[in-house]
């Protein structure tokens, strides 16, 4: 059933396309099928490429590498962790560099804080001394308090620099502070206040309510390793990495395997567009063939537009188009935040996002609408599903950045030459299509790909961190309740865009990165919050935590650590399926 089922859909799709070209007689055929509102109708598509999940089988699939054109001649023979480590050793340097910077910064900051607080104490003290003797007791009290505060602040700074997540969660304090059961009204108000902090003005920081007090340094330090947007001076290591990339890219035939190895630990901004196009299989490895391929592909895409885009208001397509048209303008600005800016840290949420003006431009919204509409009608088995729109963004942003040297904030897309913009659009379309080819069963009827992956995630987590798993079971939190979105939007709703872009460097370098490795990343991501999870002692607290994980300040280091852990899990469990199986 499975193989013939999906084959039939493909044929249906093609049949439709052909009919559409000859005449318009076959209206309402396939498109409405998917939106039949008959409850429980199971008539669809478990794709032939996606048999029911079996970890054993899946492992073999990964190894077989059924994307051969992307991994020419290289069934990943790796190997030991040492080998991996030596290949990607620089993945770890990120942290090292930072540690040094952070230590230096912390030192400076310590002195600053110490001095400031000390001055305050002295000031207090001298003021108090002028007062009457009656108050002497209080003077002593405040002095002690001042010293204590000084001490605390010092400690806090040290702790925060060491480990940013160490703060006591403000809500637990709040809840503990109002246990008076008679004052129920104020209790309910307390809850409201509590959730305000969770989603409220500080919504983008979520639970990291104490960010304003946090030293500025981590973010500043992070600026240096952001290779997504205009960066200050490159470090030596970055320069040498860029050189390596340039060498690999220079030859007449790019060694994709080598490029993949290099890319796993992050791609320098300067070569990211070309590298993504190569790794996704959009561009051929052979330099001479590239120009003609690009030309052909771009023509093909605009041929689709010419052919189909007018049909967006036809009866059988209007639902799709209307949905896309609603979704694009309300795409989440949070997910568009590319680069935290130093000035913004003081106002505790980034209010201005350099990409928001970009995404508010009608021409950009139209580009997204065209890309999504064309993809949807060419893939009737899934059609347009919310979440797919997010997947265009990283490609579009990376390819636009190829042409932006100056200030992103004031960048007007219409200042790009029309053909440049058309190229960006077509390239984004094809790269997104390649990505979706690997995960289409995430979006077909009943979303079997997601269901399967969420189940696999549960099994995996129960193996790697039983206490987290048990804790969630105890409070009846189901994985589907939070991880559905992780799969449907590839963590894009959980991470800032700069992190997604870094994550995708690796996903494109990893065989089946989006469809398979993502599972391990999700597992590592969940376990990353084990401390916070175990601190929550009820269903509500857990759900709110898991739907608002505080990643706003995340940058490359956090992603590098996450990926390293995911890699470890993949090898621990993929090579030992019996560990994986319960």
């Amino acid at each position, binding site marked *: 059933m499975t193989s013939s089922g999906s084959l039939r859909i493909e044929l249906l799709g093609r049949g439709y396309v052909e009919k559409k070209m000859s005449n318009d007689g076959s209206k309402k055929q396939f498109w409405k099928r*998917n*939106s039949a*509102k008959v*409850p429980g109708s199971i008539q669809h598509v478990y794709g032939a490429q996606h048999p029911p999940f079996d970890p054993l089988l899946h492992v073999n699939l990964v190894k077989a590498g059924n994307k051969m054109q992307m991994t020419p001649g290289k069934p990943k023979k790796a190997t030991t962790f040492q080998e991996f480590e030596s290949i990607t050793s620089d993945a770890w340097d990120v942290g090292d560099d930072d540690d040094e910077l952070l230590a230096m910064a912390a030192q400076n900051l310590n002195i600053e804080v110490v001095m400031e607080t000390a001055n305050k104490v002295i000031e207090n003290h001298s003021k108090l001394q002028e007062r009457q003797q009656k108050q002497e007791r209080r003077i002593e009290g405040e002095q002690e308090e001042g010293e204590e505060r000084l001490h605390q602040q010092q400690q806090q700074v040290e702790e925060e620099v060491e480990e940013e997540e160490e703060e006591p969660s403000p809500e*637990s304090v709040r*809840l*503990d502070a109002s*246990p*008076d*059961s*008679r004052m*129920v*009204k104020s*209790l*309910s108000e307390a*809850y*409201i206040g509590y*959730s*305000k902090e969770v*989603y*409220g003005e500080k919504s983008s920081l979520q639970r990291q309510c104490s960010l304003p007090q946090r030293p500025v340094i981590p973010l500043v330090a992070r600026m240096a390793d952001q290779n997504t947007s205009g960066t200050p001076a490159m470090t030596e290591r970055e320069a040498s990495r860029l050189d390596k990339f340039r060498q690999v890219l220079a030859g007449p035939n790019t060694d994709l395997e080598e490029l993949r190895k290099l890319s796993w630990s992050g791609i320098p901004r300067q070569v990211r567009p070309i590298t993504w196009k190569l790794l996704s299989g959009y561009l051929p490895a052979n330099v001479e063939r590239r120009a003609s391929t690009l030309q052909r592909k771009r023509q093909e895409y605009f041929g689709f537009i010419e052919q189909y885009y007018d049909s967006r208001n036809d009866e059988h397509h209007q639902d799709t188009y209307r*949905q896309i048209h*609603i*979704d694009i303008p*309300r*795409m*989440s*600005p*949070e*997910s568009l935040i590319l680069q935290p800016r130093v000035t913004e840290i003081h106002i505790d949420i980034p209010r201005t996002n350099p990409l928001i003006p970009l995404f508010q431009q009608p021409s950009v919204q139209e580009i997204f609408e065209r890309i999504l509409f064309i993809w949807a009608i060419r893939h009737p088995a*899934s*059609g347009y*599903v*919310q*979440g797919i729109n997010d997947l265009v963004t990283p490609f579009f942003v990376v390819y636009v950045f190829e042409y932006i040297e100056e200030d992103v904030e004031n960048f007007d897309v219409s200042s790009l030459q029309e053909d440049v913009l058309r190229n960006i659009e077509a390239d984004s379309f094809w790269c997104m299509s390649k990505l979706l080819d690997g995960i289409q069963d995430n*979006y077909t*009827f*009943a*979303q079997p790909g997601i269901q399967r992956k969420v189940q696999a995630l549960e099994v995996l987590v129960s193996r790697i961190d039983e206490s987290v798993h048990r804790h969630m079971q105890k409070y009846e939190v189901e994985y*589907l*309740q939070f991880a*559905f*979105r992780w799969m*449907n*939007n590839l963590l894009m*709703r959980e991470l800032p865009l700069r992190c997604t872009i870094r994550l995708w460097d690796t996903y494109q370098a990893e065989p089946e990165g989006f469809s398979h490795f993502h599972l391990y990343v999700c597992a590592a991501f969940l376990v990353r919050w084990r401390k916070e999870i*175990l*601190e929550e*002692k*009820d*269903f*509500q*607290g857990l*759900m*709110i935590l898991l*739907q608002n994980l505080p990643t706003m300040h995340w940058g490359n280091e956090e992603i590098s650590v996450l990926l390293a852990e995911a890699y470890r899990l993949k090898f621990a469990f993929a090579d030992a399926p019996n560990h994986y199986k319960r």
Partner: protein
Amino acid sequence: MSETYDFLFKFLVIGNAGTGKSCLLHQFIEKRFKEDSNHTIGVEFGSKIINVINKFVKLQIWDTAGQERFRSVTRSYYRGAAGALLVYDITSRETYNALTNWLTDARMLASQNIVIILCGNKKDLDADREVTFLEASRFAQENELMFLETSALTGENVEEAFVQCARKILNKIESGELDPERMGSGIQYGDAALRQLRSPRRAQAQSAQECGC
């Protein structure tokens, strides 16, 4: 961490995409309009304690995605819901026409006794109105739904919608029409009584212990 309330009700917010379900929930919990509301993927969770007829009721609310494709996931949340807000957009007849389908789903998948309030949202956009109050009210009456027109933007009738739905459930419990003990009722007793016996100090000590792990 235990909380003080008399009842816990499970609620659902359902209706077509773009009708303002998430904004209604946000307005209810936060008391302000969510400007940059992105579309919901799957479900999102919210919770609030309200005071209804001298009872403290904790609402656990599942805000569902409106898009058809997510129906297979969102349906699993219907089971065990005590109340639902069924939302349409007064400026979009299409969302109103879909109500019958949503209603069928809710009645079939949730408990038979689910209390549903129909919400005609975006009341503030009266100039663009496509669905009159009268016809929606008639639909509500024919299908035994409560009915309000709401505005997640101004907050008008938003709290009322949740409170009215909760009040009706409480009334049904008091009249014996609903049995909270029954499986899948979507209702649980709170631990208010239990909590009152405990001294605050002991409660604090206990929670401190819990956090120490």
